[in-house]
Every structure is written in structure tokens, then in C-alpha cells.
């Protein structure tokens, strides 16, 4: 299949996830399980024969949802509740919620109150990542999640099925990581929107179908020569739950930027870490959960020996990036609390960075463009000085 056709299919699923889910359900007659970000193991639902999909913020203005959540909740949570209130989630047979932040908890309650016929599976994960009991507590959480899932499906999920799902998911992640590596080296000149479509569609599509398309895509870049690009190389950081709006990414690239790396959830954060393929699958998932925070640190987790700011500075050196743009979703408390540390570390290291606060309701792109263009001019003039 041609690259354009593969990318079109990824973009289609990324642009309308619930339509993809409806079509899949109609085709297979199987269950669809939606989940909130960030640490839900899709492997479990996949092994149970369901389609796991991570629920996505839409561009629609918040209407009905205003009656449930205050306007100072983040755009992702308000969009989730709004979609639920408008009946958009009728395709979902179950929704899995985690307790990653207070706002996600609020959204979970709002949805639970209104979708009384949809099975809600709630799971809690220990947020302290380096205690002696972290592995054990994580195993307990995933074992409980498995048991709830089995209860919902009505049958046991076999270890063999889980191992097979883990291998498939790992393969999918490895292929996307390969694309990231190729983009960094310039041999896969994928734009920021294209890369988002690759990752976002992986959160939605049937994993085998997605992996097959990915293999074909990666093969087309194998052996390619690096394309010289004189644009300013930047790393994109932030957005732990929702995808940055494509028009924002487009605007950033129009300012003479090439995105060479990211730690976005709809980016490298999602595919950074594999699940161990050996041993009991629940233990493997617990290990994956813990490793993810060293793969790409998350401000919602607490780990004394891991710094997100140090990780970002390392990533920028590795990517040979000239600077970083931080995309902070408005009212994202974990990000707001952690950002001062990132700012301080970057200023100390002399690495330029620009903070952009993003909003569900849209942004004044022209004004933002002036800020990004200025940032690019700063980076260029500093390099020339």
C-alpha cells in the first residue's frame, strides 16, 4: 500500500475514533472498551477479544457537559463528559477509568452518573513509584482490573492470550519507535501531524490491522537517505492526555520548525516502553507500569530518582534539538505544578524553550504564531551570535 493511503487510513481513524469503533463493532460483533489515558494496559482488553480504545477529546464546543463539570476543568475532561452527555459514547460497552488526577476522577464520576447502562471499571494505581511495595501494589491493581474485565466479558482471560497480546502491542510500539528514530535521523520526513496520526490511530485501531499498516509504512523508509532540512529542530513537550490540535502543530511547522522529537502522550510517551514478554502477565504489566515512568517520566507519578526535566534535557541532546516548545493544556494541574522545575532547569542549561498554553475552545493562532516566530528568531540569532 502507498504511503499516502496508509497515512489516510491512520488520519481517518485518528479524526473520527468513535466511527472507527462502530464500524469495527459491526464487522466483528465484539465489544469495544474505552479508556482514559494514561496507564491503561490495552493488552488486557485485547486479550479478552475486545477493542481497547483510548477516548479522545473532540473539537466540538462544550454544551451539555457544562452542567456537570466546572469550566476550570481541563479541556479533555470536559470534552469526555460532554461526549458522554450527548450520547456519543453509546458504542462503548465499558469504560475504564484511572485515578491519575483529580480532574479525571471528576470526569469519571460525571460519566458514571449519566451512562448508567455502560459498565464502568475503575482502577487505581499507586503513584509512588520507588517504594519497596510499588511492584506488589501495582500487581494487585492489575490483577483486580483483570478480574473485573473477566467478570464483564463473562469468561477468563488466558495467560497465553495475554502473552500474545503483549507481543503484538510490543511489536506495534517498536515499529512506531523505529519511525521516531528515522524521523530524528531525517530518513523518515514525517511532519508533526502525520506522527500524531500514527500514534493516535494506534490508540484506536485494531492492533493487528494497525501493526500491519505500520510495517508497510516503515518498510518504505528503510534504506532512505537523510533529507537535509535547514529548519530549526525542536522538541515538543507536554499534553499528557489529549492530542495537540493539528492546526497548532501546522502553525508551529510553518514558522520554520521541524519537530524532531516529543514526549507527548500522543507521541513518544505512549510508545516509549514495552511490557516484558516473559513471566506472569500481570507481573509484566506491573513492571511495564513502573518502567514507563523511567522511559518518559510523568509529573503525576512520584519517583525520587527520576526527573522529567533531566529527561527532557537528555532527549534534546540526543535529538540534536535547538530548543523545546512546551504545550500545556489549560488547567492541567500536574503540568502546571511541575513546569517551574522544567523552566528553571532549561534556563540553567541555557536551552531555549517556549511555553504555550492550549485550550479546548481554540486559540488565537495569529498571536501564537508571533510568539513561535519570535522563539525561532531567538534560537537562530543565538546560534549565529
Amino acid at each position, binding site marked *: 500500500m502507498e504511503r499516502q493511503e496508509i497515512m489516510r487510513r491512520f488520519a481517518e481513524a485518528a479524526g473520527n475514533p468513535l466511527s472507527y469503533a462502530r464500524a469495527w463493532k459491526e464487522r466483528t460483533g465484539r465489544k469495544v472498551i474505552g479508556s482514559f489515558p494514561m496507564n491503561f494496559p490495552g493488552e488486557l482488553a485485547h486479550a479478552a477479544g475486545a477493542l481497547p480504545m483510548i477516548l479522545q477529546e473532540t473539537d466540538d464546543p462544550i454544551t451539555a457537559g457544562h452542567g456537570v463539570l466546572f469550566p476550570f476543568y481541563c479541556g479533555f475532561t470536559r470534552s469526555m463528559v460532554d461526549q458522554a452527555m450527548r450520547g456519543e459514547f453509546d458504542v462503548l460497552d465499558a469504560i475504564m477509568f484511572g485515578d491519575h488526577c483529580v480532574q479525571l476522577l471528576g470526569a469519571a464520576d460525571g460519566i458514571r452518573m449519566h451512562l448508567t447502562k455502560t459498565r464502568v471499571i475503575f482502577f487505581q494505581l499507586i503513584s509512588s513509584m520507588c517504594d519497596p511495595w510499588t511492584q506488589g501494589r501495582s500487581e494487585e491493581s492489575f490483577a483486580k482490573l483483570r478480574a473485573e474485565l473477566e467478570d464483564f466479558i463473562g469468561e477468563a482471560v488466558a495467560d497465553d492470550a495475554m502473552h500474545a497480546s503483549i507481543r503484538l502491542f510490543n511489536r506495534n510500539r517498536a515499529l512506531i519507535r523505529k519511525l521516531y528514530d528515522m524521523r530524528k535521523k531525517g530518513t523518515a520526513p514525517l511532519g508533526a501531524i502525520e506522527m500524531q496520526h500514527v500514534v493516535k490511530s494506534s490508540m484506536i485501531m485494531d492492533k493487528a490491522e494497525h501493526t500491519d499498516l505500520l510495517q508497510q509504512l516503515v518498510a518504505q523508509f528503510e534504506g532512505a537517505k537523510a533529507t537535509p532540512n535547514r529548519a530549526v529542530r525542536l522538541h515538543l513537550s507536554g499534553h499528557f492526555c489529549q492530542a495537540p490540535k493539528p492546526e497548532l502543530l501546522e502553525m508551529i511547522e510553518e514558522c520554520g520548525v521541524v519537530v524532531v522529537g516529543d514526549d507527548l502522550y500522543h507521541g513518544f510517551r505512549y510508545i516509549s516502553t514495552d511490557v516484558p514478554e516473559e513471566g506472569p502477565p500481570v507481573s509484566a504489566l506491573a513492571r511495564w507500569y513502573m518502567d514507563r515512568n523511567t522511559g518518559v517520566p510523568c509529573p503525576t507519578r512520584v519517583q525520587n530518582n527520576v526527573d522529567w526535566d533531566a529527561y527532557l534535557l537528555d532527549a534534546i541532546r540526543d535529538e540534536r534539538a535547538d530548543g523545546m516548545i512546551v504545550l500545556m493544556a489549560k488547567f492541567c494541574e500536574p503540568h502546571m505544578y511541575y513546569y517551574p522545575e522544567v523552566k528553571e532547569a532549561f534556563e540553567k542549561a541555557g536551552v531555549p524553550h517556549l511555553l504555550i498554553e492550549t485550550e479546548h475552545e481554540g486559540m488565537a493562532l495569529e*498571536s*501564537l504564531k508571533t*510568539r513561535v*516566530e519570535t522563539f525561532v*528568531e531567538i534560537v537562530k540569532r543565538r546560534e549565529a*551570535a
Partner: protein
Amino acid sequence: MNRHVMGVDFGSTTAKTVILDLSGNIVAHSVAHMGAVSGDGVKQSMKDALEEAGLAQSDMGRVVATGYGRRMLDEADKNYTEITCHARGAVAMVPGARLVIDIGGQDSKVISVDSNGLVAQFAMNDRCAAGTGKFLEVLARAVEIGLEELGDTALQAREKLKISSMCATFAETEVISLLAEGHPKTDVLGAVHAAIAMRTLGLVGRVGKKGPVVMTGGVAKNPAAVHYIQQALEMPLILPKTPQIAGALGAALIGLDDYRAENKHLFISEHEDMAREEQMAADKACIPGCRGVPELAVDPFEKQPPKGKLKSLLGTIQNHI
């Protein structure tokens, strides 16, 4: 080679043009008022500056545009953002400035400048017209007073009132309420300017307070805005003579840098020029065989014993021959 460059600040309410000679001296400048990002206004501004300088557009070696309409100017060879240009222009006007407060028609920005005169950090109003010239314009209309009288009237304020809303529309409602309560226009306008100052202080907080502080942009010509901002900052503001043209000046200076870099083989500094003149004069006075260093010259027809180190050097050369 052309002997002049032009910087054009295609702003939201005014267009500014600066023409520089190749030494960086301002030859002409102009400010034209216009409607929202008007092509006619910017053309008028460029025409006025060219007429003042007695030059034609074709005499410009480089044209750099900045401001809201920077991408719309056909004559521009390059464009840069108003933040980069205002910082450059303000530092040129006030050497050593470390913080630039620029309040223009539709935006306000605070730029921190490093010791090399480069932009270190910046913050700008990103959502509404709060704290901008437009904010003042709306509120001047609400109190039925001309924009040019606004500052002097506000300076006569006696009682401290408070306008808490930063939104121009909501602030207008507050202004009307205060007037309806019987407060004099002077006090109400004092509160309006105090609100702008607090907004500016917020932007300063985002990039870090440091001095010397220079204020540019049209609002720098409003004495009440300057007074209240100084009071809020607890620091003096340095006001250039022509604060409105800082962006255009910065654009012209960046254009000059580019033009110089591109034609560096044609450029010689004044110092180099003088050195070359002296050399030519010396060459003319030289004896045959001179290679441009007269004191080392040797007249082949006049045998004079060399002196000191030169003697030993020449001796060595002769031995080798």
C-alpha cells in the same frame, strides 16, 4: 550598491517607517495613522519617509517588515516579529537597556534583553486587548474624551478607584458604573491607567524584573500610563524621543545587518577607509620597490646600511640567496 535600508512596522493602528544609511544613522522616519492593518496607511508611511530622505524605493538595499501586517508587505525582502524588532530598536535607542515594555495598539509585550542585546525572554498579552492601546481607546470613548487628552486628564486623579476587570468590554461597564455613581472623569481615568499598569506588572513578572527599563510603543507617549507603570514597577522608565518607531528602527537595523553580511566584500569601515587612504598616500610617496611598508623599503640605487633587527633579517636573506 544601494546606500540605504528601510524598516517598516506594519502595525494594527499605525504604520511606521525608518530609513537608515549604511552607518546606521536615521535618515528619515514617519508615522502614519490608519485603519486596521491598512495597505494604504503603510504605503503613505513609506512614501513620507522616502520624501523626507529625498530617496526612491529603488534606493533601498534592503527592506525589512515587522508588525501585524509584516507578511503583507510586497516591498519587504524579509520579515521579523515585532518582539525581535522592538527589542533591537529599543536597545539601539537606549544602549544598556535590559527590559523593554512595549504597549501598542492591540498588544502589549515585555521583553527581557541579555547583555548582548538579544531577546532572552518575552511575554505578551495573548487573549484579549487588556492593557493595550485599544483598551485605552475603548475607555476614552466611554468617558467621552479625546485619546490625546486622556493622559493629562488621568494625571489629575485625586481619589483611588479600582477597575477590576481586564476585559475592555467589561471594564467599560465598570467605568460607566463609576461615572453613574458620581465619580469624576479624572479619578475614573486614573483607575483605568492603574489597571493597565497592573496588567503590565503581570507581564514583567513573567519575564523577570530588571533594569534599565525602556518603554516604547504609542502608549509611551501617554504621561499617565508612564506614571502609573513607574509607580507599579517601582522603577523609572526611560522614554526614547520617538518611542513609536522602535519596531521600525529594529527592522531597519536587522536589514542593515543582513545587507552588510551579504555585501561585506563591498563594505569597508570608516577606520579601514582611513587606513587605506593613508596607505595610498604613503605608497605614492614611496620609492621604487616599496611593498607598502615604507620604513622597510630599500632603494636599490642607494646603498644604506640597514639597522638593528632589520639588519640581521636582511643579512639572513642575503646569506640564503
